[in-house]
């Protein structure tokens, strides 16, 4: 019962914050709402037994990535979004198309997982830092190392793209 209560609270927070991300006019409000989504998702990861992933979510996403977003919003002095008239197809078909997408996803999930198991908190303890680290450095060593190269390339790319042109 407690599990369901916790899931309900944080799922509600996540969905409300996600809707807030989309409907807010100012990008900084969207960014703060997105931090709310990520924090409540971290709680859900904890309930699913992913301790390492929950902490990485808080540190990497809610910490580093969102700080980067807020910096860029401040740097560009981004203001309220200008609304312009959109095409009638988008106005008429937008919401039904999205609901259709949600329906298709729900149908597929219901078909693939007809009698889904019940997840209790604490019945999966394989997501701690020890297990994740062991798997990363034994079986998945090559992808892990390739990731570091990817990060290096991304750093260089960001610096090259964002630098001031030297005359």
């Amino acid at each position, binding site marked *: 019962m407690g*599990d369901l209560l916790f899931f309900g609270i944080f799922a509600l927070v996540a969905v409300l914050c996600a809707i807030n991300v989309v409907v807010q006019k100012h990008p900084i409000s*969207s960014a703060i709402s997105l931090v709310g989504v990520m924090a409540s998702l971290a709680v859900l990861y904890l309930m699913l037994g992913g301790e390492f*992933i929950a902490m990485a979510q808080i540190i990497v*996403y809610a910490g580093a990535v969102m700080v980067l977003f807020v910096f860029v919003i401040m740097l560009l002095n981004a203001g309220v979004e200008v609304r312009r008239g959109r095409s009638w197809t988008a106005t008429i078909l937008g919401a039904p198309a999205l609901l259709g997408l949600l329906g298709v996803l729900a149908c597929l999930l219901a078909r693939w997982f007809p009698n889904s198991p019940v997840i209790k908190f604490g019945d999966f303890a394989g*997501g701690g830092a020890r297990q994740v680290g062991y*798997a990363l450095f034994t079986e998945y060593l090559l992808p892990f190392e390739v990731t570091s190269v990817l990060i290096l390339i991304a750093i260089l790319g960001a610096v090259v793209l964002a630098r001031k042109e030297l005359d």
Partner: protein
Amino acid sequence: MPPIPNGVPESFYLALSAVLFVIGVAGFVFRRNIITVFMCIELMLNAVNLSFVTFANQHKQVEGHLFTFFVMVVAAAEAAVGLAIILTVFKNRTTLNIDEVDSLKN
């Protein structure tokens, strides 16, 4: 009426993931600010991460967590490069509206 289960059915997590993904798609399609569109992409990635962690719990394997870890790393790299591209676009055009960045169309 069925009895209330002691725990959360797995389908609830998957449904939450689908709802968050569709909200992300809605923002991606309807918003016009390039930074907000980028944030909606992050929202979609988060929704997919939730289903990865749910499946890791279902199969009692750690691989789902590793995939989530790699998605996070790629998303961080993507955020760094994407925001640098946004900075460059703003420097060249002084606009953040994606409707006005249409050089390829004309």
